[in-house]
């Protein structure tokens, strides 16, 4: 027989002690769902973004998603499109995004950071160098909208080999037949997209979402975070009853947009207004539960 032995599972980097795993373990111990906050790197400019990022954990963010701005965000609604364009206009680059994470990580060693975006800026970085730099900066995971399981050899498998969590989106169209493929190389958590649609548009129905989360949980032990369309503390509280974490994004970048002056520059209230919203949203998970 000249068939090669199958690679041992134990040879893969252990995922049991990533920051994301530890954070979900801590949330379970606190018997509450987590708040995942999305902000766009470099929005509205690099300096203001650094202050927002630094303030998020104290405001109540359990996990931080950092958007990597892209000129053509095909799955995003107007709010996040605008945030990406603001960041690009202010001169944001992938190197600056990674540097921002590194600066954050020097002060905070426990709050997980997940980079979220589209494949092209990573592809041209290119992939290997990106994974090295991201890991080195203290990035914990990746969510790449246009890298489905069929394309796993492009980024997912190399990322997992580097010890980064690759977090997959499951959607209402991810049926029972497809779910195993979506879960196969996913780690950290599963991101359930609560609507078919783009970010920040229709509001999800909490009962529907709970049923879908329950369906996914039958197939995986991973925590499930729910996002897309969650905007108010009431929604956060309702969704959280049937999920391990709730993701908010459009409401935060909209708050940033509303705080800017007529020239699109940050004002004295920019940082505080977005952190204030995060506090309000987080309170929905910490009281009355």
């Amino acid at each position: 027989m000249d068939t090669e032995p199958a690679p041992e599972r134990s040879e893969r980097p252990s995922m049991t002690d990533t920051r994301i795993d530890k954070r979900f373990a801590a949330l379970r111990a606190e018997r509450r769902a987590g708040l995942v906050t999305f902000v766009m790197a470099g929005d509205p400019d690099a300096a203001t973004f650094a202050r927002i990022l630094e303030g998020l954990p104290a405001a109540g963010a359990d996990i931080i998603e950092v958007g990597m701005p892209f000129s053509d965000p095909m799955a995003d609604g107007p709010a996040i499109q605008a945030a990406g364009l603001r960041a690009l206009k202010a001169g944001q680059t992938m190197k600056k995004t990674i540097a921002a994470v590194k600066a954050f990580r020097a002060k905070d060693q426990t709050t997980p950071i997940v980079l979220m975006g589209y494949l092209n800026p990573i592809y041209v970085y290119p992939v290997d160098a990106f994974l090295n730099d991201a890991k080195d900066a203290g990035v914990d995971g990746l969510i790449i909208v246009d890298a489905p399981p069929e394309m796993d050899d492009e980024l997912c498998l190399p990322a997992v080999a580097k010890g980064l969590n690759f977090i997959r989106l499951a959607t209402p169209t991810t049926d029972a037949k497809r779910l195993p493929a979506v879960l196969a190389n996913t780690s950290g958590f599963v991101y359930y997209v609560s609507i078919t649609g783009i970010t920040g548009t229709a509001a999800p129905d909490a009962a529907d979402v709970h049923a879908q989360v329950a369906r996914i949980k039958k197939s995986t032990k991973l925590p499930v975070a729910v996002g897309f369309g969650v905007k108010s503390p009431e929604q956060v509280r309702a969704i959280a009853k049937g999920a391990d974490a709730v993701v908010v994004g459009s409401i935060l970048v909209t708050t940033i947009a509303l705080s800017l002056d007529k020239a699109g520059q940050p004002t004295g209230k920019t940082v505080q207004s977005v952190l204030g919203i995060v506090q309000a949203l987080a309170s929905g998970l910490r009281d009355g539960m």
Partner: protein
Amino acid sequence: MSSPKTRTPNPNSFATGPDERGYFGMFGGRFVAETLMPLILDLEGHYTRAKSDPAFQAQLADLNANYAGRPSPLYFAERMTEHCRKSASEGFGAKIYFKRDELNHTGSHKINNCLGQILLALRMGKTRIIAETGAGQHGVAVATVCAKFDLPCEIYMGATDVERQKPNVFRMHLLGAKINAVTSGAGTLKDAMNEALRDWVTNVKDTYYIIGTAAGPHPYPAMVRDFQSVIGRELRQQMMAAEGRLPDTLVACIGGGSNAIGLFHPFLDDRTVKIFGVEAGGHGLGVENGHAASMNGGRPGVLHGNRTYLLQDGDGQILEGHSISAGLDYPGVGPEHAWLHDTKRVTYVSSTDKEALAAFQLCTKLEGIIPALEPAHALAYVTKLAPTLPDTDLLVMNLCGRGDKDIFAVADHLGMKI
């Protein structure tokens, strides 16, 4: 079993792609959001079955013949040939033919693809159609088939293009389509495609997206190519009838590249046939972000569901590009062209805005045919290439669209008021 003299199948066939994952070499694939993946896999299944279903093929052939008006004529452009021979040495100056796809119903090759895809949408039980359009030729073709098959239709079109292609916008209105003017980005074709994808991801259950060019996630590039290949298949027969042999040289313009791949594909394994694709050179390839020549002025990247050559900056942000022609004003190109470029089977060149404008007027005056600005780019290159070829060379240019839609824009560029 095999004798030493058995030849292995030609490993360099250019006509067998893509592979089962949708790759042409390293190009293609399916880089889409998870929401769309089940639908795209479903579409691939339906298309695979339809392709080998004689009933589907018969219905499509009937529509092509009796609704679209195929086959389109192969026309010997005698005065254009004479014109190019004037500047050629003795014994040079190719014999120039036009493949007249501008004579199709709706005025361009776009109808070939739309008829195929609307039949597929019906087979899949979809009840709503969306599409993107640049010059409006694809939008008009989509609106046309939606009128014929009684399906609601929404067209995404960049606001800049809505302005410079008013006649087509009005046609789409008349045909019953809803036009959504897209203001994000530069308001051109790529922005329209982003917005169409956002609609699709939102309405995935009942909506079919008729992509207009041979790009996007697998199986679109192969499917659109197959529907457009009727152009090249007809040409083989027509040239055999006219000249008793295959053509020597093929020329077509390239935006996403659907008319070109339709002309080229049936000839890819005929190695004696020289093939040229003409990109939009805009203000010139040396002008940053001033052209739409993704292969001659771009690098590989991932956008709109496929890996291909893209106009982009060093950080992977997509550039808008520029062309006088709304139909070529796109920062990417179909993945099969990207592969044919890398393998050098096809030579990709470019024509500038000015050259296309000159060719537009030349064709109109010499042949009495007003070409669209898109094929005017191909024609501009023909006027340079033909004089360098022997006078026995049979050159075919795909005249893929008519220029009625462009007369206002051209008048503007020439400083005339209509």
